[in-house]
């Protein structure tokens, strides 16, 4: 009899666990409840079979339970979320992806061919983000079934950005015969990627309101997209390297350059779409990989940061205002923010404080201390050298990153446990909007402020 009950409970439990929203811990809890109820019912005289049936019925239909768990644990649902298009047929999303990837290749190659024929071709570097990301945005508008109204707004934003950026007189000729790109061109081109990425995320979220949990979805997507893109780029690097080696004996450098000019930009552009598709199609693969990567690198970064902070504090920084050093620290802080965000996004919100949370906090505090040491010494000198667009962009980003991390650290220190984690996650995801605004500021406001220098 007891064995019979065990078998039926196991069957019931398996049905429950098929849903990714019920963890083994939850199933334990529900199973314990079920067995308690069965025992009570048996005590009042029901036989095992009846008791089990009634107990199951009182717990509720499994799909209702899993649905209710899904509402409470939206983050677990992420594993299951399938883009609406994928629910129709298996082959269609793949075809759509191929079409958009091909479109990305065509766009970048046409732009490249035109830029080869025109002189000066200073519009090409300035607009490079516009040759790649709008295709990705269009891809999301299609596969995420973005409502027309939202799609029009997104299109208008992209078009508006394109007009403004091209109306700005950021010509190479402005700096005379050196033919070096003015600072603003590089800044605008770089920050445009960031601005357009946020537009792409808006499309990715299907024009839904940016609630904290949806922003976290956007973070997960971005992180996983980067992992896939890097993996594809590594593979592409091997492919191109081997191609070069194979072609070398039978051709001159000119031919190899031609091949590269066709293959490299095409691959880089198409990979943006392929990576986006992979994130959706193969979600659970990287879902398992990203937390592992974060878990490996957070402690390593913590050690490096603590050591560096100590070394800088002892040695002191007698350096002059050095933009390159500042950029190094910007990159460092971006990596730390990424580790924190990614760690939080993959963290089970119900688990209590663990070693990882402490390590993460140590990394944040060390990064902030280190950066403040550098920033302090640089701010003292910035007056002597005056501000340029590059310095403003680098300093501004640095200040924002520090504010972000200090906020995270304060929230993390205020109290351990799931509530603090939730607060940290909300703060971090809310701060993303600040970064988006900053990137837009650098693209739109900074160049005119400095007379398009």
């Amino acid at each position, binding site marked *: 009899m007891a064995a019979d009950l065990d078998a039926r409970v196991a069957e019931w439990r398996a049905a429950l666990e098929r849903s990714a929203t019920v963890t083994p811990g939850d199933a334990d809890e529900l199973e*314990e409840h079920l067995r308690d109820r069965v025992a009570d019912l048996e005590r009042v005289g029901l036989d095992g079979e009846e008791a089990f049936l009634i107990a199951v019925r009182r717990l509720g239909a499994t799909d209702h339970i899993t649905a209710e*768990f899904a509402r409470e644990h939206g983050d677990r649902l992420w594993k299951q979320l399938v883009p609406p298009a994928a629910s129709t047929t298996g082959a269609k999303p793949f075809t759509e992806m191929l079409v958009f990837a091909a479109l990305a290749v065509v766009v970048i190659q046409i732009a490249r061919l035109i830029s080869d024929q025109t002189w000066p071709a200073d519009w090409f570097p300035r607009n490079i983000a516009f040759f790649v990301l709008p295709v990705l945005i269009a891809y999301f508008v299609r596969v995420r079934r973005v409502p027309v109204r939202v799609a029009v707004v997104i299109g208008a934003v992209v078009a508006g950005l394109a007009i403004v950026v091209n109306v700005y007189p950021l010509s190479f000729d402005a700096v005379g015969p050196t033919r070096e790109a003015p600072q603003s061109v590089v800044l605008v081109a770089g920050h445009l990627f960031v601005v357009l990425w946020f537009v792409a995320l808006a499309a990715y979220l299907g024009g839904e309101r940016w609630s904290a949990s949806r922003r976290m979805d956007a973070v997960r997507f971005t992180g996983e997209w980067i992992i896939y893109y890097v993996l594809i780029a590594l593979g592409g690097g091997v492919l191109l390297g081997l191609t070069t080696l194979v072609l070398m004996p039978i051709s001159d450098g000119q031919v190899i350059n031609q091949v590269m000019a066709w293959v490299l930009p095409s691959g880089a552009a198409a990979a943006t779409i392929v990576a986006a598709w992979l994130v959706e199609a193969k979600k659970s693969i990287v879902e398992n990989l990203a937390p592992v990567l974060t878990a490996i690198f957070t402690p390593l970064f913590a050690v490096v940061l603590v050591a560096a902070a100590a070394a800088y504090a002892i040695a002191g920084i007698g350096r002059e205002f050095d933009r390159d050093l500042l950029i190094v620290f910007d990159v460092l802080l971006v990596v730390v923010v990424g580790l924190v965000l990614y760690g939080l996004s993959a963290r089970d919100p119900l688990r209590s404080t663990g070693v990882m949370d402490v390590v993460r906090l140590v990394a944040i505090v060390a990064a902030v201390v280190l950066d403040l040491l550098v920033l302090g010494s640089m701010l003292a000198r910035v007056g002597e050298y005056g501000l340029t667009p590059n310095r403003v962009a680098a300093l501004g980003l640095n200040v924002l990153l520090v504010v972000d991390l200090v906020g995270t650290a304060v929230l993390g220190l205020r109290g351990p446990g799931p509530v603090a984690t939730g607060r940290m996650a909300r703060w971090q995801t809310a701060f993303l909007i600040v970064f988006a605004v900053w990137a837009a500021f650098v693209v739109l406001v900074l160049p005119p402020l400095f007379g398009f220098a």
Partner: protein
Amino acid sequence: MNLDKDLVAAMATPLVLAILVGGRNYGYAILKRVHELSDGDIAWTDGMLYPLLHRLERLGHVRADWGVSPEGRRRKYYEITEAGEAALAEHRRQWSAANRTLGGLWGLTSPVSI
């Protein structure tokens, strides 16, 4: 008499918190307590209690830890926190206001027999 679904849903949080004020407890016992206290008037699907408890845990109103039942199975115990007690006090204020308002209207007319 079974209470209306929406009313039960509105009561669920203060009810669970108030039961936990009486001490650390686990899901099945909480449900049994609800059943006793309401003479069976309040019945909800058992499975729905757990998402509610997990939500309260996420909000920091309760703390959970695993223990062992007398039968030797894993059992999750819940305990109210200070934040939970504060939330319960707020619920209580709101329910008193609702009670007072309706009681003021119903107290003057004939009491409804139950």
